[in-house]
């Protein structure tokens, strides 16, 4: 439902498009970011930081491949450590893109048009970061392809009962569909850049990727139906990927993992953290590139509402986990919950409650939802909280399970941190390359909005 229909015009800050935006100004502004030379200092600083951390990632990967996965702090009983925590965290972040692009598109939420391109790019890079971890964490990463059902000479296939196999399919499907969806949406805008570029190599490069887009009505018709089809295809993936990541844990018999609440609770958590990451990135970028006219307080408000809703679902998840740990009557489950709250990792648990349950209560206030600074801070807190949540789930469940004799401890090593920070750098570097070389807002969809506003005289 369009936000404008039949309602009085909202105050300026709450419109989906700023005043004075025309079709031409959208194109000029957004294409200009790609075409402009040289890059602004902010871009160099942010990209440089990302690049440096990415080098740290390369060093960590090299060291892991040379020495083995033992450079991390994993052990028995805590055989999964930061790698899996980071994997789940990144995959969760990668959820916002598809949700915004596909589900909101199908639900005709036009406010998504300002942020979908950006969120999709973020999804792609987050999935790339996520995808690294399960591979690096293998004892023998060189044989990762055994996870795929390729026709092997011994007639061996993957073991289909293992959720890790489902995971491989879920994540690769999600990655591919996200990439295709993102690229298909990009084609008209790439053609715009091609036409506006002032250097031959840029014209040629963008020309290649624009796939000969000529802006004909036929093109548009085919493009739109493909886009909608892909959106329909991507929609179930939003639920499936993180459900299966949840099943990675829920299928096991580890107290703290073996829980039916995991799939829905993981999906809610993923959307929660995905929106938090979109906000963390878009608020400063909006300020630097002056995108206030496209990403308005109204957008922030919408995203904050989604965060609040999913955050409450996650809180409900925590509550039901605790309740069923008690209600199960199982001494292992009881102890697991007590150990989370009072054991050696209790600080992580209470910090996560503070971040994910307490901090989001501020979002009930409209002022906070529309205030960029407050929202930025809360989004960062939520990012941290969601990372802690995965840490608590993975580590505290494993470190004390059934037999007290086998209970252990977990300490992340410097390489654990280096790999994690490295993926943050990789993500940052990719994001800024994207901002520099690809239109970061969807030009044609924004122009549609401008057109619709002119046509209907509405707000959007």
């Amino acid at each position, binding site marked *: 439902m369009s936000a404008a229909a039949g309602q009085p015009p909202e105050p300026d800050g709450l419109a989906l498009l700023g005043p004075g935006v025309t079709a031409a100004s959208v194109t000029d502004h957004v294409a200009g970011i790609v075409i402009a030379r040289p890059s602004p200092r902010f871009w160099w600083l942010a990209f440089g930081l990302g690049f440096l951390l990415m080098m740290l990632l390369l060093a960590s990967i090299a060291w892991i491949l040379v*020495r*083995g*996965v*033992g*450079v991390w*702090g*994993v*052990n*028995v*009983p*805590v*055989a*999964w450590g930061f790698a899996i925590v980071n994997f789940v965290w990144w995959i969760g972040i990668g959820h916002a893109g598809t949700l915004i692009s596909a589900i909101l598109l199908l639900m005709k939420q036009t406010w998504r048009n300002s942020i979908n391109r950006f969120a999709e790019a973020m999804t792609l890079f987050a999935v790339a970061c996520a995808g690294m971890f*399960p591979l690096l*964490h*293998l*004892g*023998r990463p*060189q*044989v*990762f*392809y*055994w*996870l795929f059902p*390729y*026709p*092997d*000479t011994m007639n*061996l*296939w*993957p*073991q289909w*009962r*293992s*959720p*890790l*196999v489902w995971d*491989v399919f879920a994540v690769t499907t999600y990655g591919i569909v996200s990439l295709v969806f993102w690229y298909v949406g990009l084609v008209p805008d790439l053609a715009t850049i091609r036409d506006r570029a002032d250097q031959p190599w840029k014209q040629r490069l963008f020309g290649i990727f624009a796939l000969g887009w000529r802006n004909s009505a036929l093109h548009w018709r085919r493009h739109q139906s493909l886009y909608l089809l892909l959106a329909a295809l991507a929609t179930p993936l939003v639920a499936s990927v993180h459900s299966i990541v949840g099943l990675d844990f829920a*299928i*096991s*018999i*580890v107290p703290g993992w073996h829980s039916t609440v995991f799939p829905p609770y993981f999906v809610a958590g993923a959307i929660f953290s995905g929106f938090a990451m979109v906000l963390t990135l878009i608020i400063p970028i909006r300020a630097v590139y002056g995108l206030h006219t496209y990403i308005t307080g109204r957008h922030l408000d919408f995203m904050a509402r989604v965060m609040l809703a999913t955050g409450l679902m996650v809180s409900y998840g925590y509550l039901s986990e605790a309740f069923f740990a008690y209600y199960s009557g199982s*001494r*292992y489950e009881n*102890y697991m919950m007590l150990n989370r709250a009072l054991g050696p990792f209790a600080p992580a648990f209470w910090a996560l409650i503070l971040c994910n349950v307490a901090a989001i209560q501020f979002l009930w206030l409209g002022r906070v939802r529309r205030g960029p600074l407050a929202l930025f801070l809360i989004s960062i807190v939520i990012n941290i909280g969601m990372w802690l949540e995965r840490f608590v789930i993975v580590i505290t469940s*494993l470190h*004390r*399970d*059934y*037999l*007290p*004799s*086998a*209970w*252990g*401890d977990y*300490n992340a090593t410097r390489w654990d941190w280096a790999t994690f920070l490295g993926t943050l750098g990789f993500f940052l570097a990719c994001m800024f390359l994207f901002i520099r070389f690809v239109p970061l807002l969807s030009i044609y969809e924004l122009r549609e909005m401008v057109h619709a506003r002119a046509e209907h005289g509405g707000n959007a």
Partner: protein
Amino acid sequence: MTAAEAHPAPRRPPTSMHGRDNWTSLADLARSPEFRDRIEREFPRHAALWESGLDRRRFLELAAASLALGGLSACVQQPPEPIVPYVIQPELVTPGIPLYFATTLLRDGLGIGAIAESHEGRPTKIEGNPNHPASLGAADAIMQAEILTLYDPDRAATVLREGRIAAWADFTAWLHGESAAWRPSAGRGLRLLTGPISSPSLLALIARWLEQFPAARWHVHSPLRPAAALEPFAPLYHVERAERIVALDCDFLLNGPASLAHARRFIDGRRVRADRPRMNRLYALESRPTLTGANADQHWTLPPPALELAVARLAALVGVPGAAPALDWPAGADWLPIVARDLLDHPARSLIVADERLSPEARALCNAINQRLGAAGATLDWIPNPAPPPEDGSLAALAEAMRAGEVDTLFILDCNPVHTSPADFNFADLLRRVRRRVCLGLYHDETAALCHWHIPRAHELESWGDARAFDGTISTIQPLIAPLYGGRTPLELLALMTGENGMSDYDRVRAHWAAAAPGADFDARWRRWLHDGVFEGTALPAAAGPAPADPAAALAALDRRRADAVPARLHLLFEPDPALLDGRYANNGWLMELPRPITKLTWDNAALIAPATARRLGLASRQVVELTLRGRSLRVPVWIVPGHAADCVTLPFGFGRERAGRVGDGVGVDAYRLRFADTPWWTAGLELTPTNERYPLACTQDHFRMHERAPVREATLAEFIQTRGEIAPGHGDPPAQEPSLLPEFPYDGCKWGMAIDLTACIGCNACVAACQAENNIPVVGREQVALGREMHWLRIDRYYTGDLHQPDTAFQPLACVHCEHAPCEVVCPVAATVHDAEGLNLMVYNRCIGTRYCSNNCPYKVRRFNFLQYTDRVTESLKLMRNPEVTVRNRGVMEKCTYCIQRISRARHAALREGRAIGADDVHTACQAACPTRAITFGDLNHPGAEVNQWKAEPHNYDLLGDLNTRPRTSYLARIRNPHDELDADRSQSG
């Protein structure tokens, strides 16, 4: 299935009904309908391919696809390694079939019979020799680890003269010249220092040497038994005849050359079964937690002086004449009378066990108690010391002579006095005053470094020799392999010193026995001795034993020391490290990394203190303290041990070596620096100063409470009898087998299973070391253990119940339990861990990619992961050591107990060859074979005769975590203890 069915004979090409058809070419034959038919039957999937005819296009397509797919699976290139068969096959050797030889390993000079497994001339595994009284078929952790010592790349590899490489001929020439110079003075200034020696042939050589050089002297040094090694008599305990045993600060189940026999005999008296609910009873009084105390039915923790007073009081209570005044002494007022009554109720069937940790006076009282209880001749005999010591041949006497400058030439055979002698001797300084110093040893150790000559010693597995067991039984030492590093035996060196060289050790030993046991059938007997490893009927006869001391005098001496019983300051106690002994195994990685039975510490010693003392002094585990005694000090980390006597610090010795080798150098703290000649076992007057430093001690088990999970189920004998053994359901678990919609898998052939009797397990680690040796398990090092990455497939969990002051300790060996519903199998994404048709949970190393989900999902946490490249792929000598029947694992794969699948395969092959089924007793896992107390049984659950089925039918058999419906193949028999009913009720208040 018979062999013929399993391997159908190759069939001939089919012929037509009309006799032989001639075919002119292969193509001709291939076109025949019979051949087509046969191809179709044999390769139904390829028949279509054959029918359709393979055209060039299709062929190229297939070839390209195969090439591409082949590339996928061929990313690891194997190095080319030529395989060269024997040109001349040695007698008896069949490649791939191991041979077994009886031999003997030495423990502080006394023999323990062993059977060594040899693969194409390489000894790879030690088993116990069932014929030998000190082994009875078992082999403890140290015996298992001898294999690693044999192949240790750090062993001395060459003769050294003043640190420079020399030839053996140089040494013989030198010695020849020297011995000529000894003759005129009859060997004045000539000294020989050895460890305890029980070898009759070596003793005879030493006697002849002393005859040749009457002024020469022989000294014996044993850091493990400094006093007992010099005593003319040794006690021989008949544990099997004792129904009531009191161990007085004596770890007779773990320590010493008789411990395997003691453990077996002790446990034989307490194998509780539903139809035989009978047990002996062991009381232990101890100053620091020991394995004996942990296995006692009742134990009390007392500081050493109080313990001695308790001995005196016990003497008075059982009615030792003249001991009556001790009745008023403070220790154990409430429980000692009950113990005494229990002992008196079992005359001639009770036994007091004590060793030299007690003062001579207290030991005299022990002898008197044993006398009073009628133990002598029933449960206790005295025999001449099987390692007879020289007269006045103590280390102190040698040190005195060295200090006086009377020692001109010193031969040191296989002992390391520079490291192990009492601190007040300053042996290194004394040694430097000796003009000519010769040392024979396995390693270029602290002593060798100060000697002019160092001769590498041959390992027992490289030597000929003989030895006596603790009871005097003689056995042979047979070499399994030629000396790897050109080592020489003590026999060879002594023979050179007496001028009897020119003979091989084999001839020397054989000649000795040909002379000592002459007879026409000597050749036949000799062969039988070598085969059996034991000279039957050579146990030493009982002797009169030490003269009885006057109890009153002993009591008076103890009375004078009563003031010490309330310590003004801390007491310092010593004990040998359970794995490294006196330090001689410090370069053995298996033993270094063996979790110590009580502390579960690896790779370090620590100052062990009681929780109460730690609280009083404000100390925490891993905190470094400075221990000061008589002006010498030592910095050592603290480890808090429940069940330790208050205000006492135990410091195990054997660590802190400076010249052990790459593994042992600088590991731990050298406790000998505080061990003085007059106080070898405990002393008062220790000062302890805490520091702020912390040291990362590596412990394999941090949590010792059972947290209401009852992994070890326990009951007293009275409860066992009362409930007719049905003690397990009392813990409120659901039935072990939950209903399932799926049909059971039919196990038509074998169905392997294991049962472990927790009453019998004493926690000694023999199984852990045996598993390591059998299954090529790598050593990971202190840092990796501290991270929780030890690789032992089999671990022994230790739990405490009761109060921290003197808790009950329970041990539980735990390896993969081979669940019927294995949680690991469902979560592996590549099917690297699967169930086989005999019920084994297999680990397919080649297929493992290392997701480690199986380990997370294993509720027993028995899976081990190669986080780094733990297996040493470089050192050549270690390659010889490995069991060729077990895959050597590399980085990145999961591993775990296989139920010794290689042994199952060997039994299956043997059965197949002989056309029979696998017998009930054909397969012994390595842990089972090594166990001194036979606490583990393994077998085919489908075989009615298998012992494992009898065990599993016992009412106190239970599954660990059975409520998870994993249905483990390994089950446990609950731990039954036999406390005195009067003491059991108020146990928590006493002590």
